[in-house]
């Protein structure tokens, strides 16, 4: 029962955030009218416009993702290291 309550809390919080995003982005009709509408067949496709049904080569996207994550990690660690460096005592 506790788990169900917890799941409910997660879903409610997610719904509130999702609803807020939807309103902010302009899911409503007023904002939609300002956006250039797409014709059927012009549906947006994620990451590229080619016809993609999978299996079209090496998974460079996965490698790219790993590189980006590694860079983010490296920047964070380097920044942390720099900030945690104690200044040398200055002799009077």
């Amino acid at each position, binding site marked *: 029962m506790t*788990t169900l309550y*917890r*799941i409910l809390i*997660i*879903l409610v919080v*997610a719904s509130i*955030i*999702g609803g807020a*995003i*939807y309103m902010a*982005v*302009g*899911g409503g009709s007023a*904002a*939609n009218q300002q*956006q*250039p*509408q*797409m014709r059927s067949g*012009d*549906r*947006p*496709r*994620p*990451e*590229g416009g*080619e016809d*993609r*049904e*999978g*299996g*079209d*080569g*090496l*998974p*460079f*996207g*996965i490698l*790219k*993702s*790993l590189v*980006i*994550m*590694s*860079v*983010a*990690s490296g920047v*964070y*660690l380097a920044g942390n290291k720099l900030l945690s460096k104690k200044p040398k005592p200055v002799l009077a």
Partner: protein
Amino acid sequence: MSKTNRTKLLLDISTFAAFLVAMDPRTSGIAIHEWLTIALGATVVVHLLLNWNWIVEVTKRLFAKGKGLNGARTNYILNWLLFVDGILIMLSGIMISEAVVPAFGLTLPMNFAWRSLHDLSANISLLLMGLHITLHWNWIVSTFKHMVLRRETKPVTVLSMESKEVKA
């Protein structure tokens, strides 16, 4: 090693692998990309449930006095950002869906803004996920060694708090 830690690690590794595949729709294909991401939503809920005690404990301390939190505050904020970004990815993905939404016989109004948001939030999620893994790296390595190599390691607390440690 506790059974919970083993479950957490296996779930996290599986989720991460699925996340990587989902981030490459060109290779996987649009249908796998969408259905896999829906499944990822469920695993994220389980991930949160398994770490519920940590979430509750840090939330309480954060709103109580704000003292006694070291790296847990950064971790907490980062986790929230990741959660919000995940919701943004899911929502924008549903709005531009080509497989999942049509499978239910639904059509949604098309809007270029969702497409841009989907790309942006996906890129941000890579950065946030990189940081999320970095902050939990010690726990991952320790638990992995313990599980796979059967090596005795000291219990690792992830970004513990000063007065009371909360195990990840």
